[in-house]
């Protein structure tokens, strides 16, 4: 949708590199893959869990003991973002829009398993408290005192891109003055198994973008949220402004092959929405998680729209495939790159085709002045998502 001047005034992150934006960006520019674990007993996709953190340090709720990783991560991220933006939820009508591919499905399944295997009528209801697929958003809204519209969006791996797009639309239409938007996903053996069953993580599909030896995709997790608002609401509080979302666009549910064909026109449309030409894009954040349909879309799209020598970062190679949270993770890393003037995981100019990712290059950060970063991500089922993140001009 066409550019409303929507600012990012707060950021909240829980990632495999730790809690907070500095930990996230620091981990990315160090260029080392997050630590992974492999579920015992089976040859399954590796999981990069959020680095150890104590949710109780951030969130004051006795109910924390009943909730799982997604709910804890999101609650902490929303709390951090609100504090970062200097927002008091009691005084403002703040909305919360969160994208997630599977939400709390692992908790739902765990609860279901106990029910069908045991004495269901005797189970404590608190065991099911975190078992709705929107439980993370619901819990976060309660513990953070969110009083506006609260939505959980499930659109596969572009869910958080759709959440950002919806947040932009809500602000643009005057439906919500301030929106906390982003995504959450957990790296769980059940989800890995489901995705494997769907063929998303087959080893032969790995590293289609890369000219280096194939990398193996892995599942990552985290919560990545931003406070979005217009200048009108922000100016009173004078928060730090990280940048602006110049455009957010998604397209859902079309077959993979057609989405590959649609990639360039789609990204061109996103740039047009941001009123930017390809020459104005200083960097690209591709998912680059080494899953064939995703990488193929991004390669096709970036060939079409990214200018020669535009550096491409691929944080999926470092934190794993964060699925429904991926677009938000990339958008926040784009904001960090703009603010810290340092881009993680850059494909070298001229040596490879535009958009090609290389495992060796991923370890080298690139310093520079990045004014506009194009974020693109996709869903193996065919969904496309793009966000244009821009620097705020003085």
């Amino acid at each position, binding site marked *: 949708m066409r550019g409303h001047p929507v600012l990012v005034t707060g950021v909240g992150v829980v990632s495999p590199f730790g809690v907070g934006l500095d930990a996230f960006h620091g981990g990315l520019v160090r260029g080392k893959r997050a630590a992974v674990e492999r579920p015992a007993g089976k040859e399954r996709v590796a999981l990069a869990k959020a680095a150890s953190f104590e949710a109780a340090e951030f969130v004051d709720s006795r*109910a924390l003991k009943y909730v799982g990783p997604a709910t804890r991560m999101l609650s902490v991220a929303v709390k951090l973002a609100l504090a970062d933006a200097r927002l008091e939820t009691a005084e403002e009508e703040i909305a919360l829009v969160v994208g997630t591919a*599977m939400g709390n*499905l692992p908790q739902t399944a765990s609860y279901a398993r106990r029910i069908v295997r045991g004495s269901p009528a005797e189970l404590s*209801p608190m065991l099911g408290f975190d078992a*709705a*697929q929107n439980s993370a958003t619901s819990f976060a809204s309660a513990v*953070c005192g969110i009083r506006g519209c609260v939505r*959980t969006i499930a659109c596969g791996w572009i869910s958080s891109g759709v959440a950002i797009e919806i947040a932009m639309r809500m602000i643009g239409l005057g439906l919500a003055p301030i929106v906390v938007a982003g995504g959450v996903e957990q790296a769980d053996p059940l989800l890995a198994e489901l995705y494997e069953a769907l063929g998303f993580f087959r080893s032969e599909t790995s590293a289609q973008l890369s000219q280096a030896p194939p990398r193996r995709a892995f599942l990552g997790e985290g919560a990545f949220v931003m406070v979005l608002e217009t200048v009108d609401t922000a100016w009173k509080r004078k928060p730090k402004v990280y940048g602006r979302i110049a455009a957010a666009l998604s397209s*859902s549910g079309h077959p993979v092959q057609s989405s590959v064909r649609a990639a360039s026109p789609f990204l061109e449309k996103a740039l047009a929405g941001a009123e930017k030409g390809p020459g104005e894009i200083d960097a690209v954040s591709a998912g680059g998680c080494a899953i064939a349909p995703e990488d193929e879309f991004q390669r096709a799209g970036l060939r079409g729209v990214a200018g020669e020598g535009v550096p491409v970062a691929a944080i999926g190679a470092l934190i794993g495939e964060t699925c429904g949270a991926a677009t938000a993770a990339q958008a926040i890393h784009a904001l960090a790159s703009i603010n810290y003037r340092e881009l993680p995981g850059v494909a070298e100019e001229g040596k490879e085709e535009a958009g090609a990712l290389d495992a060796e290059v991923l370890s080298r950060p690139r310093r520079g002045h990045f004014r506009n970063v194009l974020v693109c991500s996709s869903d193996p089922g065919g969904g496309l998502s793009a966000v244009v993140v821009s620097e705020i001009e003085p």
Partner: protein
Amino acid sequence: MRKEAGVVVTGVGMVTSLGDSAEGTWEKILACETGESEISAFDTSSYKSSRAHLVRGGNALSGQELSRIVARQAVVDSGLRIDARACRVAVALGTLGGELRPLERKFAAGEAAWERPIDASIAALCPPQSFAAHAASEIGALGPQATFLSACSSSNHAIAHGLELLENGEADAVVAIGVHLFSQTEFTYFHNLRSLAPDRCRPFDARRRGLMIGEGAGALVLERKESARSRGARGYAEIAGIGFSCDGYHVTSPHPAGEGAVRAMRDALRRAGASAGEIDFVSAHGTGTFVNDPIECRALEEVFGKPCKVPVSSVKSMIGHTMGASGVIETAICCLAIRDSTIPPTANFELADPSCSVDCVPNAPRRARLRWVMKNSFGFGGNNVSLILKGS
């Protein structure tokens, strides 16, 4: 004050425990029939309830099938021809989540079955967005798709999303869908919360004992008023305004005074440009639980005055609580109520409760000209949506 763009409902579709179509369900609602039946999908001997409102007697259709059926019904009802503008037709769907029943069956089959890898046919049913994809495929819609998981107000958010797309010019028509599937997991959860009625759902009645889960799906075709008019389509009603709020109060309990519900209703009235005094009928959330009904009634009194004189009824007494689908299904029922100038009744009402002192249209429909209708959905976790329909 911001007025919503003129968006009308031009088609409805529905599958509930009362019937496989919107008209079939409506006919039985007018007869005050209830659709509960015995659960046969699992052993209920350890539970204090064994009944629910099930489609075709239970577990007959998958979420993908339900989505396809209601989407097709609504599009046929609207007379909308999608072929020429498929890219401008969007699908927005609300549900609690993807299919759980295949996973339940796998767990129930024992440890050995669980240790075997999940096969693709089960995995494909798990992503919640698969319902919207199937509905879009059924009707040939190639526009944006989005799936909303917001507890009992999920499909209200789907309707709201449709309005936003239409108002922003990003679609010419939106099929808003709600789907709810019955599962043992959900049944157990509500049972153990002591929220399930053992026999019947009795909203606002002094002897109410809880909700009854309802399976079902509904769909609405939404179009801008001028588009509908230009193709000569009948509009059931205009969606005049939607209000949102979140209690932001407690992780499990609703605000005791219904503060969030009041804000949602007032927000909807403001956006619709209507006053409380103009509302002719409120389709309540009306779950029939001991705690929620009085809170909703207090909120209604806060908005409409005490005593609340506007008729307030709950079709959940007849079709059960269809959870994430209830917003769309009950909005479709409001459309039929406006068309036929008839307020649907609250079934099973026998004994008045002083803490629920609303005119609940007990046990028989009531003729009334319905110009403004409010539909409330107050989801678990304090996710409140109030929607206002305007008849012609």
